[in-house]
């Protein structure tokens, strides 16, 4: 069953007089029980997509889409309160920087108890409900692997180690038992052991509760260990999307290939200290976006035709948008 269906999502931002397309015709479909990875470098608009889904963007930005539906209901045309209800119940977000996205003036326990949905509580009287809430909070913390629950509930965000706060954010996201968890770069700046713990936790949640996960990151190693489907973004355009093993076996877009090659641990045949392959140049800023295919100036295969925006082409379940895809001559 299709949970979230986005077609041609375009987001325009007003930058010093001109409207710039920060997101340009994004397509994404998330099925139930799927782990969907969204890959892109910084400034590619990953977090903007997340914010557009939950509706946390400023009103003055223009959002247009052919289709943006949650289980068949159109998210863009419904009233704000109806949308908020859906998001409260079914979608939860793990934000990028856990310490900054929590309230520094409340203890973690207060914040977690606030997240618990009231219809889960069965008892009537307030003292009973208080106890029940506490028990639920402790249970949630145990579920994500925080053993010292009392210390965690009583302390403020800055008093706790950052990987524990990250786990706590996941506990908060799980509190309302959503259908979709959006994890916005949950493993940034972590060392390997706590990273694997968090990845295991997310994939376990996915398997046990059949929750879908939208995993937003630029850490390809983490993504490829858990995701089944991947969408690659570059500067607000989707360049390629498809099953992960297909993308890894045969990527059509030069950018996807460059991303895959840039991680040294992906290739076993690479001798130590040999130069890594990389694209020249850097990611353009929003003020200086190239026309047409936005990879154009950095692409090793760019030709004259690349100044036009490439059409989305399709091979089975594998979508890509490039005028001169890799592996094409061989066919």
């Amino acid at each position, binding site marked *: 069953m299709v949970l979230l269906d986005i077609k041609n999502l375009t987001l325009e931002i007003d930058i010093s007089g001109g409207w710039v397309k920060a997101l340009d015709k994004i397509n994404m479909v998330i099925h139930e029980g799927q782990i969907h990875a969204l890959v892109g470098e910084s400034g590619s608009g990953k977090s903007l997509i997340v914010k557009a889904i939950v509706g946390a963007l400023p009103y003055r930005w223009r959002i247009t889409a052919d289709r943006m539906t949650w289980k068949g209901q159109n998210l863009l045309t419904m009233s704000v309160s109806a949308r908020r209800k859906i998001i409260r119940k079914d979608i939860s977000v793990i934000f990028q920087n856990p310490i900054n996205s929590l309230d520094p003036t409340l203890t973690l326990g207060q914040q977690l108890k606030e997240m618990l949905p009231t219809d889960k509580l069965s008892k009537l009287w307030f003292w009973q409900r208080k106890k029940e809430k506490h028990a639920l909070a402790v249970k949630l913390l145990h579920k994500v692997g925080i053993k010292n629950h009392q210390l965690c509930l009583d302390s403020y965000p800055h008093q706790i180690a950052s990987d524990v706060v990250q786990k706590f954010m996941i506990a908060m996201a799980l509190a309302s038992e959503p259908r979709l968890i959006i994890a916005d770069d949950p493993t940034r700046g972590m060392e390997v052991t706590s990273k694997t713990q968090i990845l295991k936790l997310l994939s376990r949640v996915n398997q046990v509760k059949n929750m879908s996960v939208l995993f937003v990151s630029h850490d390809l190693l983490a993504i490829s260990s858990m995701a089944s489907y991947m969408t690659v973004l570059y500067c607000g355009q989707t360049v390629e999307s498809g099953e992960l093993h297909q993308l890894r076996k045969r990527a059509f877009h030069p950018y996807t290939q460059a991303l895959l090659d840039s991680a040294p641990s*992906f290739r076993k045949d690479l001798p130590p200290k040999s130069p890594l392959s990389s694209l020249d140049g850097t990611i353009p800023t929003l003020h200086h976006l190239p026309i047409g295919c936005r990879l154009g100036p950095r692409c090793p295969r760019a030709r004259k035709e690349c100044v036009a925006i490439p059409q989305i082409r399709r091979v089975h379940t594998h979508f890509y948008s490039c005028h001169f895809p890799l592996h094409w001559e061989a066919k």
Partner: protein
Amino acid sequence: MDLINVEDLTFQNCTKHMWSKSQVIFDLGPVSFTLKAGETLAIVGDNSSGKSLLAKLLVGLETPKSGTIHMNGVQLNKSNISVRCHDIRMIFQNSNESLNPGLTLGTILEEPLRLNTKLNAQQRSALIEQTLRQVGLMAEHRFFYRHMLSDGQRQRIALARALILNPKVIVADEPFAALDPSVRSQAVNLLMKLQRDLGLGFIFISHNLGIVRHISDKVIIMKEGKVVESGKTDAIFNWPKDDYTKKLVESHQALVNRQHN
């Protein structure tokens, strides 16, 4: 001949009270290692395991409690601090925030020259231009400010600032953490190229075991201020001895292997 030779380096962070005994908050070391010219040493460990502290001890930002650092057979201490400033340079954790937003890049690069060398203005500016070209930027970049550059270019400036005194050792605190994959491989390539050309000793801290495995010759694994294991990269990744190292390597391998099936 060893370029840098560290023996039993220790450090203690204590709280000082007037009457009661001082309490030890953090205990580092003893750490010992040697590094030859052109070799790379990686320091790996948990958060708050004292990696950054070790880097600061090496450059001389903190004074060690005991232990010695020899460089080319000469012991480094307070009397020859100018030699140390000249020969060991540091790249800080966040290249974005470690550059002064109010100064042009040329001024930022000129500062270590003014403080450490006796060059005149002309020679300084020639050296700045040469170093900027060396790290793959243009001579005009000296008139730029921090905000005009992208992440990768800032990393290059941080590297240029470390290189400009022609050091023998560069100490880098998570130089690749904040960079995006495609820019990161550029930075890695640049560092490896400079190391080949200039014969630099390179000491770096990283979480990314893929990169550690790729570019380092030796590894030090740290946990809670203690060196858990140290040795050749190959040996540590293939035959880890300590439990903590095993856990680290296994969790990395698990990530790498899961994607292959």
